[in-house]
């Protein structure tokens, strides 16, 4: 049961991280407001199932859609203005905080006290199924025309624009996609912990998501998934306090930027074939070494 809980948490974080990877890793903009989209998803799903009695499998897409729509509120003005990436980041930071204040003051969200007694829908098979679906969609998104355009923008947005790519549209689309993923993550989180309050979705949560993507490798999908699993599991196993975890994440971010900016995976993807090739190459290198000596 305990291990199940950790696995569920790993996959929930991986879902949100994959979403953010599509945005940060593939368009080169950093968001510090993705906790807000998780919050929107969590609240949408919780209100839909608890207050209106809508079935979970209808409420979940609603949560994704709602988070996506909310992302347009911040995305359309800031992305249309083509802000510098640090300006965009601070705008999302402000947006995330504004969203939390809003949730604390709306009557339907029950304010700062939060919503308790949510049904447990996020059981392991359900979460696993949704995880697989999200990863499948992400993979298809990245290998579609839009994914290619996003990569072009990340590499050189001026050249991409000159090649006829609509910067605003591609960025907005990946923001929408990533917000929808964060919304799903938030909704699953709400029905896993079975209690939500605005305090759960602070900028610390946003930063952790960003850290996951950066550590996993900007430009990879499997990298952030691996990082999400590591980031949940290692502190669980070591049983360290929350604060020291954050201290370590902070140091890790700096270390990654200074020493290995491409993260765990870089632009590459994790695959069985890749591992086999890696070990085969390892073998050939050693053989060569043997013949020389």
């Amino acid at each position, binding site marked *: 049961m305990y291990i199940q809980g950790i696995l569920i948490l790993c996959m929930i974080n991986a879902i949100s991280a994959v979403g953010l990877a599509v945005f940060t890793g593939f368009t*080169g*903009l*950093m968001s*510090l407001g993705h906790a807000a989209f998780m919050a929107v998803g969590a609240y949408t799903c919780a209100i839909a199932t608890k207050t209106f009695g809508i079935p979970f499998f209808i409420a979940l897409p609603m949560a994704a859609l709602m988070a996506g729509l909310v992302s347009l509120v*911040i995305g359309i*003005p*800031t992305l*249309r*203005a083509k*802000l*510098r*990436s*640090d*300006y965009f*980041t*601070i*705008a999302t*930071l*402000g*947006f995330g*905080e*504004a969203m939390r*204040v*809003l949730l604390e*003051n709306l009557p339907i969200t029950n304010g700062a006290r939060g919503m308790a007694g949510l049904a447990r829908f996020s059981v392991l098979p359900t979460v696993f199924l949704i995880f697989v679906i999200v990863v499948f969609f992400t993979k298809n998104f990245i290998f579609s025309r839009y994914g290619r355009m996003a990569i072009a923008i990340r590499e*050189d*947005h*001026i*050249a991409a624009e000159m090649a006829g790519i609509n910067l605003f549209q591609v960025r907005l689309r990946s923001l929408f996609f990533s917000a929808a993923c964060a919304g799903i993550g938030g909704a699953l989180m709400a029905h896993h912990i079975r209690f939500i309050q605005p305090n759960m979705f602070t900028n610390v949560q946003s*930063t952790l998501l*960003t*850290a996951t993507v*950066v550590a996993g490798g900007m430009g990879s999908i499997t990298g952030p998934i691996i990082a999400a699993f590591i980031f949940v599991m290692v502190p669980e196993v070591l049983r360290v*306090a929350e*604060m*020291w975890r*954050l*201290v370590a*994440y*902070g*140091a*890790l*971010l*700096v*270390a*990654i*930027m*200074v020493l290995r*900016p491409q993260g765990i995976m870089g632009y590459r993807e994790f695959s069985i074939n890749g591992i086999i090739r890696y070990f085969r190459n390892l073998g050939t290198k050693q053989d060569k070494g043997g013949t020389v000596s």
Partner: protein
Amino acid sequence: MNFSLIFQTLITGLAIGGIYSLMAVGYSLIFSILNFSNFAYGMVIMLASFMGYFAMSKLHVGMGIALFLAMVGAGTLSFFNERVAYSSLRKRHAPPLYFMISAMGTSIFLENMVYATIGSQYNAYPQIFAVPTIKIFGASLGKMDLFAIIFSIIAIYILNYFIQHTRTGISIRAASYDSTVAEINGVNLGAVIGLVFILAGLFAGISGVFLGIKYMAYPNMGWITNKAYVAAVIGGLGSLPGAVVGGIILGVLESFVSVYVSSTLRDVFSFGTLIIFLVFMPSGLFGKYLEEKV
């Protein structure tokens, strides 16, 4: 509308605006030379505030010495922040996103280090003036606030003189205009950047102590320092007069919003202002808008 309330609100706004200006100057200095927003700066201010607090409450020194110690400490911290987190990125011409992630990392690291070692409680500075307020035309103004405003004006003036009229100041300006060309012309870029971070650190020291006296020292102060960033954007990042004007505008605006609209919505309002400025006037009031280089 009663006049004395408006006047009181204005005075309160100016008092906080002065500290915003002081912090915004630090953000602007670093932005002008490295062309990225150093989010770790807020945490340097927070730590400076703690240094001032420990100097005054544990070492029982006067405010002047505490201010000096905090400035030295914050300057050192800021310098090492650059050397550890940014200098190797700068040398391999990493994109601004990497700088920002590194700055975020430093900021998370420092903030949670304080949570983990010192704790999350609020630490009040000892009382400095026996009669803390004076009356100006019926509005009350803290003596400390008045001192902070005067001290800030002097500090910013000295900084401005240094940058405009000394040889080192000219090399800072040259480096902020075009770092490559400055380096070709014999400016020691590494030293200049180190100096800029130290200067920003000195300002962090001053503003940290003043903030601590006004609002106490606690690890979550980043929220106030983020608003100094908002002030720097309003004034135009990279511009010193802009930072000062932006800080005062934001302080006065916030004070009016919290009195006449709602104090819970004050922060939403500040960030709303930020987003409006970023979208419609990204160069702020005095700044130059720099496109990111690829």
